């Protein structure tokens, strides 16, 4: 059986047990997605968007999601995942909502996708029956999705405190794939902050697929922070699609430390006049990790503003990809776009492929980009060493500072602190490796 055939047989085996199996429209959407997969398979490096990230090892993994009730982790196990601030919390274990681990404040407009498919399927149909799939990696999620967060912030509302979404993979079910779909609508003038934690353990290779669809109404604001700390054997495929209304503001911050293969793909459409987006992130790789950050920003209307800044630290034989595409549509005058990708390579075997791509079809716009890759600043290292700080600690300080300088100004103190701590924890073994070298 080829991989492509296996997509169809795996889908056929679980289709009847997937959430929303009684909804004809959803079954059709899922079947079409599975059909697309059966026909084309997962994207290959021949596709421009996947040129530097090979999914063929992923295609060999088990595609079936876990459908039996997952083992419930002790709530205490969530301890170190909690944010240092009050927040509503939705916990998903192996791709399924775990209400007993979750605390959603009264009036917080968040439910699980599986529940929403039972209670208000009609409201979800427009989200899930959108135009054709962007690619078959997305189709994979559509075919098998089991759950996710549905958050709808009504016009003018401010959701406070933040909503923390925790996606937990438990050791007991490694090997089973996880498929999550989040649907987030922040209506006109509303405001929300969301923190996502993706974490798993175990050494069994598995797929963790997350697709998040975001729609911001006019003047809405969404700040989203993500910590990706998947297990070392995981393939984490994240896709975020955001549609921004006039004068709305979408800020997306991510720290990626986990996974064997991790792709963070973000497609933002500035669909209303004067919309703004900020995409910032840090990816830290070691061993044979592969981090792919792919962003596509479309300035469709005038006076949009986009800011991108990603920093990577790569050790061992880790590899990272940064593909940043900025497209300015005809008529999107006064667009202001800026992109920067900076990389610190701690070993000779580490590798970065960075590819900015500006497609400008309008006059009177301001677009710039930059990319750097290098080792630790020798002058800074010397300064620290001249104060008696050993080369190992001095290197750690510089790498920590490189990462921290970006994270520290992220607009939520608790989130920034948590993400900086996660980055610092990642750094410790790097330092140990350097000491051994």
């Amino acid at each position, binding site marked *: 059986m080829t991989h492509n055939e296996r997509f169809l047989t795996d889908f056929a085996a679980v289709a009847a047990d997937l959430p929303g199996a009684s909804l004809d429209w959803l079954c059709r959407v899922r079947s079409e997605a599975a059909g697309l997969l059966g026909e084309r398979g997962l994207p290959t490096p021949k596709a421009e968007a996947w040129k530097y990230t090979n999914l063929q090892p992923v295609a060999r993994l088990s595609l079936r999601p876990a459908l039996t009730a997952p083992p419930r982790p002790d709530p205490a196990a969530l301890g170190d995942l909690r944010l240092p601030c009050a927040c509503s919390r939705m916990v998903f274990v192996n791709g399924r909502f775990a209400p007993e681990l979750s605390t959603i404040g009264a009036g917080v407009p968040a439910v699980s996708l599986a529940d929403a498919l039972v209670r208000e399927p009609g409201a979800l149909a427009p989200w899930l029956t959108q135009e054709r799939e962007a690619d078959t990696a997305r189709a994979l999620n559509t075919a098998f999705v089991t759950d996710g967060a549905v958050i709808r912030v009504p016009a003018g509302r401010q959701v406070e405190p933040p909503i923390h979404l925790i996606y937990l993979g438990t050791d007991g079910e490694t090997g089973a794939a996880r498929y999550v779909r989040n649907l987030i609508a922040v209506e006109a003038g509303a405001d929300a902050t969301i923190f996502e934690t993706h974490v798993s353990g175990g050494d069994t290779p598995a797929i963790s697929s997350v697709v998040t669809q975001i729609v911001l109404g006019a003047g809405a604001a969404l700040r989203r922070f993500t910590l990706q700390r998947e297990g070392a054997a995981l393939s984490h495929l994240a896709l975020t699609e955001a549609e921004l209304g006039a004068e709305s503001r979408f800020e997306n911050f991510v720290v990626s430390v986990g996974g064997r293969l991790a792709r963070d793909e973000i497609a933002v459409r500035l669909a209303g006049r004067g919309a703004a987006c900020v995409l910032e992130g840090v990816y830290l790789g070691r061993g044979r990790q592969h981090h792919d950050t792919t962003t596509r920003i479309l300035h469709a209307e005038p006076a949009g503003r986009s800011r991108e800044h990603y920093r990577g630290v790569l050790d061992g034989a880790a590899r990272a990809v940064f593909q940043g595409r900025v497209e300015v549509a005809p008529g999107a005058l006064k667009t202001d776009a800026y992109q920067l990708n900076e990389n610190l390579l701690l070993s000779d075997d580490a590798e970065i492929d960075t590819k900015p791509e500006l497609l400008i079809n309008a006059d009177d716009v301001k677009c710039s980009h930059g990319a750097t890759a290098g080792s630790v600043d020798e002058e800074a290292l*010397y*300064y*620290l060493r*001249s104060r*008696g*700080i050993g080369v190992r*600690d001095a290197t750690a300080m510089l790498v920590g500072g490189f990462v921290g300088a970006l994270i520290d100004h992220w607009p939520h103190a608790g989130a920034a602190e948590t993400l900086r701590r996660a980055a610092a924890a990642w750094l410790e073994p790097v330092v140990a490796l350097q000491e051994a070298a």
Partner: protein
Amino acid sequence: MLVIDNLHVSVGGKEILRGLSLTLPAGAVHAVMGPNGSGKSTLAHVLAGREGYTVTAGTARFAGQDLLGLPAEERAHLGIFLGFQYPVEIPGVSTMYFLKAAVNAQRKHRGEPELDAMEFLKVLRREIKGLGMDEAMAQRPLNVGFSGGEKKRNEVLQLALLRPKLAVLDETDSGLDIDALKTVAAGVNALRAPDRAMLIITHYQRLLTYIVPDRVHVLSGGVIVASGGEEIAEVLEREGYAAFATTTLSAA
């Protein structure tokens, strides 16, 4: 305490120091003056252990120990401190974190217990106050966005916190207005001690009005061309380096 003998140093194949000899006894404050390109900064960095310098001949011994083979951090552990002419900006590392790491790295090396956050803060506050600095600077990223004067004060703050046996101050006066210069000089003077030697490297006589050296050396073309008392600085002030430009300046 510091004995430099016939030191020859090249950078990128070009010889910068050409047989420099200098002896600095414990407790003494010596000035090294020289025009641009005379090798002043090279001397400072060769003593501090910057990489990229090739020593082709000569020695530099500190308290009897050969310095030139040691990495920068080990020289710091021996008690050598360089006040940088251009302190390096390090984004993302708070000044406080850096200072504490430096102090504790040296304490650890001496076998003393490391200071905890509270203990360190107490010491830091005392020194910051003594230098007329703003405590808020400790929270800022190291040297990032600091004015020239703030950077130099930060160097003297480190000198005060680390209490080295040998302080080499490289152009500590550059970029300072007169008030900042007086404060920095007062900070340095307060650290003069019988067991602490200082080497003040400067282009201008101005600093030496405030930090009065025991001896002045004129560096030109990579060698010391004159040594003497304060009167040398005065000659320089009056007549410029041309007064000492004998044979080697043209080659610098």
